């Protein structure tokens, strides 16, 4: 089973999906991120999907679940790097990914997370 490495940058976790995950691998990522968010006392989780060429209903729902889980654990999840063809397909499929924040790239996601954290 492929488990994408979870990198730690301060109190932000970064995972870059480089392979076509099967359903079990997607669920394992969900569990791994929840564990890692607590272990690292993370305030943010960034999932880079710039190498992902398909987001179907299962993986889309997994992203939404990861966002919901990490939010309960006090960490905001941001999905970055979605390809335009993937975005178009997701919208037509009817997948809203409600509750999942997105950013165009890693830099913007880090800025977004730092902003959300600063008081006021």
């Amino acid at each position, binding site marked *: 089973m492929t488990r994408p490495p979870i990198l730690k940058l301060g109190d932000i976790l970064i995972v870059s999906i480089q392979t076509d995950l099967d359903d079990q691998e997607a669920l394992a990522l969900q569990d791994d991120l929840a564990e890692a968010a607590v272990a690292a006392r993370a305030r943010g989780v960034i999932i880079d999907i710039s190498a992902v060429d398909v987001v179907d*209903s*299962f993986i889309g729902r997994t992203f939404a679940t990861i966002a919901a889980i990490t939010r309960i654990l006090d960490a905001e999840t941001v999905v970055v790097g979605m390809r335009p063809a993937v975005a178009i397909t997701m919208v037509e499929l*009817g997948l809203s990914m409600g509750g999942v924040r997105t950013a165009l790239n890693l830099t913007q996601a880090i800025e977004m997370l730092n902003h959300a954290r600063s008081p006021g």
Partner: protein
Amino acid sequence: MSTERQELTIATNGDIVLARRQVRIAAAELGLSLVDQTKVVTVASELARNALVHAGGGRMRVEIVHNGPRRGLRLTVVDEGPGIEDVEQALTEGFSTANGLGLGLSGSRRLVDEFDLVSAPQQGTRVTVIKWAR
């Protein structure tokens, strides 16, 4: 051409990934745009998963079809599972019997040019979709 017609077995989660890969290759060879490739690969993934989750597995045929000058990619996913009692309901937005979001069938229909579903209780399910090259 060797990829004119392929038969894939859907029996594991890994087979869904393989189906996505094979359909991507066929769609690219056919010359579908990147967006249309992404749409048809997504549909392949949804249909393969439906067969696996609801019927324990099935088969997917991937083939290039012709209609006059037009060429398209046809996917036929067949299972021998319990079948669908109410096809209309199964195609309704948000309807789901397994743990999906109920987007698999209704959403897939929007991503292709032609969509046909034949099913009856205890007689399995056959879904045929076509994406035409533009």
